[in-house]
């Protein structure tokens, strides 16, 4: 389809503003632009059709099953959208005087309170704009805590080899050295390896629980004790909180600081990649280091500073609060149990269909298949299977993650799916497995029904074209 620049014709556009009603006042020549930016010139009707065509070429939770592991693609309730569109929220300037923003402050306070109750933390900042942003802020709390005590030797963050890529990347950004921890054959933290890695240089451990293979770290109390014993702090990556919210709390497990993803666990939409929100919770002893804002205030006595301007991705917090109100005291556990039940149900169905789980037994809210044997037998890879799912209107699971599982496909169905959706997905997967054995070529060539086939990613990276090239160039 055409790019919007290809639809542009000189002289087209919309009249949106009234004529200037004060005397003209030209920009001084020294600062004036000499060549106008080549923005599209297009009427509103064409613009509307352009974006409708783009919408048809997108795939949202509204379009079908989205079992994307580690991303918690649950249904995004419309109440949140309605609340976030209220003019009493959208029309508020971030630097209005405090007595004119009581509603915004109450939204923040109520969300913070609920998230503290759910995580077992004492304090919460809503400032970070995404999960990785929260990781960065949370790690800076750990850094500031050790520095404040005058302990500059603690420079190492321990990260399991199954962790999300953001964990080591955030630790590096916060100035730490990353030490990777091997997992056991069962997919859990290796306690002996952890003990060996802990020492006077340990600033902390970052852990996702349930972890990225979808298992609850059953030795969690021992794990946090080992790290604390060595003088380090323990960081909870909240990416997988959906499995345990209302069932078990990171604060009770011994974690000192955590981040949450409101755009995963708390049902705010992903927006094609954002905006999200990544609140950070901590125990009371870390409160003096919490972020504030130079213009808006609110930082702790020994604040790490701030990680973005103003208060928060406020409208995302409004959407999450709408969800939290609906769930109240009992809904979080109901949602978590539903997520874990659906994951085990789908896992069971896929195993029945002949797929191999990377780890046997019960899982939490997600599970990982390994297609290593299938690939050896038929040449059909995890990528081929994922691409074949596209033809059946299912968003593929997360591919090739975690790194410790070969030919990995990670499924997270979430609690907002019915049993028949899971049954149908299992049937699709069974058919794909049959085709893998009978006609592997058709899977190598998948998808067949999408608007484009597999794009040439190598060429894209080798000769990057990252903006439209205008005909006159």
């Amino acid at each position, binding site marked *: 389809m055409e790019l919007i620049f290809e639809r542009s014709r000189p002289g087209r556009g919309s009249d949106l503003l009234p004529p200037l009603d004060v005397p003209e006042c030209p920009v001084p020549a020294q600062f004036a632009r000499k060549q106008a*930016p080549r923005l599209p010139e297009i009427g509103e009707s064409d613009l509307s059709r352009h974006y409708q065509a783009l919408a048809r070429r997108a795939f*949202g939770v509204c379009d079908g099953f989205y079992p994307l592991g580690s991303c918690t693609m649950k249904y995004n309730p419309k109440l949140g959208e309605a609340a976030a569109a209220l003019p009493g929220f*959208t029309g508020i300037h971030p630097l209005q005087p405090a007595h004119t923003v009581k509603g915004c402050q109450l939204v923040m306070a109520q969300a913070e309170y609920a998230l503290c109750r759910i995580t077992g933390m004492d304090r919460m900042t809503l400032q970070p704009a995404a999960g990785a942003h929260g990781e960065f802020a949370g790690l800076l709390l750990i850094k500031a805590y050790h520095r404040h005590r005058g302990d500059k030797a603690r420079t190492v963050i321990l990260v399991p080899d199954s962790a999300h890529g953001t964990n080591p*990347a955030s630790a590096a950004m916060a100035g730490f050295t990353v030490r990777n921890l091997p997992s056991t054959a069962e997919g859990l933290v290796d306690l002996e390896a952890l003990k060996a890695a802990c020492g006077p240089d340990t600033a902390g451990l970052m852990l996702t629980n349930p972890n990225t293979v979808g298992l609850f770290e059953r030795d969690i109390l021992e794990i946090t004790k080992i790290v604390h014993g060595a003088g380090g702090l323990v960081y909870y990556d909240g990416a997988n909180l959906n499995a345990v919210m209302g069932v078990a709390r990171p604060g009770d497990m011994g974690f000192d600081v955590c981040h949450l993803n409101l755009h995963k666990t708390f049902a705010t939409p992903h927006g094609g990649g954002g905006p999200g929100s990544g609140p950070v919770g901590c125990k009371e002893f870390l409160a003096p280091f919490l972020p504030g804002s130079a213009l808006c205030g609110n930082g702790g006595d020994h604040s*790490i500073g701030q990680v973005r301007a103003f208060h928060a991705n406020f409208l995302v917090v409004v959407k999450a609060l709408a969800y939290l109100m609906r769930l109240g005291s009992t809904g979080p556990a109901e949602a978590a149990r539903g997520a874990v039940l659906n994951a085990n149900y789908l896992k069971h169905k896929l195993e029945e269909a002949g797929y191999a789980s990377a780890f046997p037994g019960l899982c939490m809210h997600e599970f990982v298949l390994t297609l290593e044997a299938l690939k050896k037998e038929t040449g059909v890879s995890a990528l081929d299977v994922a691409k074949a799912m596209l033809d059946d209107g299912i968003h593929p699971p997360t591919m090739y993650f975690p790194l410790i599982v070969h030919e990995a496909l990670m499924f997270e169905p979430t609690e907002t799916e019915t049993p028949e959706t899971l049954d149908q997905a299992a049937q699709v997967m069974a058919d794909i497995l049959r085709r893998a054995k009978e006609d592997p070529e058709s899977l190598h060539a998948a998808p067949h029904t999408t608007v484009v086939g597999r794009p040439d990613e190598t060429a894209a990276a080798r000769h990057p074209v990252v903006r439209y090239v205008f005909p006159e160039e």
Partner: protein
Amino acid sequence: MGGYLPAAPEERARQYEALGLSGPRALYRDVPDQVYLDAPLDLPAPKSELEARQSLEHLAAQNVRFPTILRGAGAYDHYIPAAVSAIAAKEEFVTAYTPYQAEISQGVLQSIFEFQTMICELTGMDAANASVYDGASAAAEGVAMCRDRKRTKAIVSGAVHPDVIATIRTYCFGADTEVVVTTVKEGRTDLTGLVDDQTACVYIQQPNFYGLLEDGAALAAAAHAGGAKLIAGVNPITLGVLESPAAWGADIAVGEGQPLGLPLSWGGPYLGFMATTQAMMRKLPGRIVGQTADAQGRRAFVLTMQAREQHIRREKASSNVCSNEALCALTASVYLSMMGPGGLRQVGEQCFAKAHYLADALCALPGVRLRHPGPFFHEFVTDLPASADVLAGLEARGILGGLPLEGGLLWCVTEKQTREELDKAVSIVKEVLGIWN
């Protein structure tokens, strides 16, 4: 019911049965008893949708919405065409994930490619990324792009937005980079004698925090003379009328995209954009969409140059950024397409003219004067007596006045405010100051 579970309780019971499980505790058998919660959380009871909606509407109603906003300082009250909000609310865009599965995500990918192109056009740069969290984090990531083993110092103009300076400091605390904030001379950046062979980059803002226009070309030349990069934080709404940062010598252009069709929303979500030259393109953090083709030669878009990113490079990645502000970037693209080059120029011209109209009218009052000499865009600082009383007087009549700043007020005017509103504001200031002529 609770938790938005679509399945009926009997259906869930059958799922447990199919798994041979007695109930929830059996699902969570790996969770130790010491941390397993067997009582509801200490939170209010679940609300029906009607009750929750009423509570949220009640919260919104407790805010004061000013019909006239004469305050900017990093968040700007511009007109948002009706089509912008309608298009950005399409459920396919709102509920999609990051477009890793390119074949079913061409719509999102193309929208980002178009956004990148528009940012390149505005800034005059060769490459842009798909967005970061906001203007302040974009500034901090821009500084990180310039990190160099031999050059460990970042110079930041003192005339930059305070939240931006603080965010740069926080990121640099993480990276152990030294931050030097320049002095400010008559409201503008004073770089005299600061750039040395340790300096990796100089960060300036155009127009600056006080609304003033900096001599970008001179500052870029000073940075380059010392071997440092020049990073420009720009307000994109100005770039229909102001010269592009690339034209005056910036190596990296970043900024806050909120003025491009995003509501004020008490500070977020907003939109950080980043653009740079061909030479520095591979140092850009975050997602970037590139054009390629499928096996049949059909044009296709993909996330590209991913070898820079955290999910591939882990601790060696150029940044940890993962989620960004894709939907806000799409919103900005729709806004820029609605405005077109003519509309964007018109917005810039009206902001400029109306701000100067208000500044002239205020400064015609005895005791009121502009704090800084020289050209400004759509914000300016006045010194005036009793600024707290002035703000209270304006507030009582539905006008959010300028931001209090070291005894003065930092005003902002956009295309949205009418001459009538500006005249009304001036007459209230007169009244409060007891000027009756």
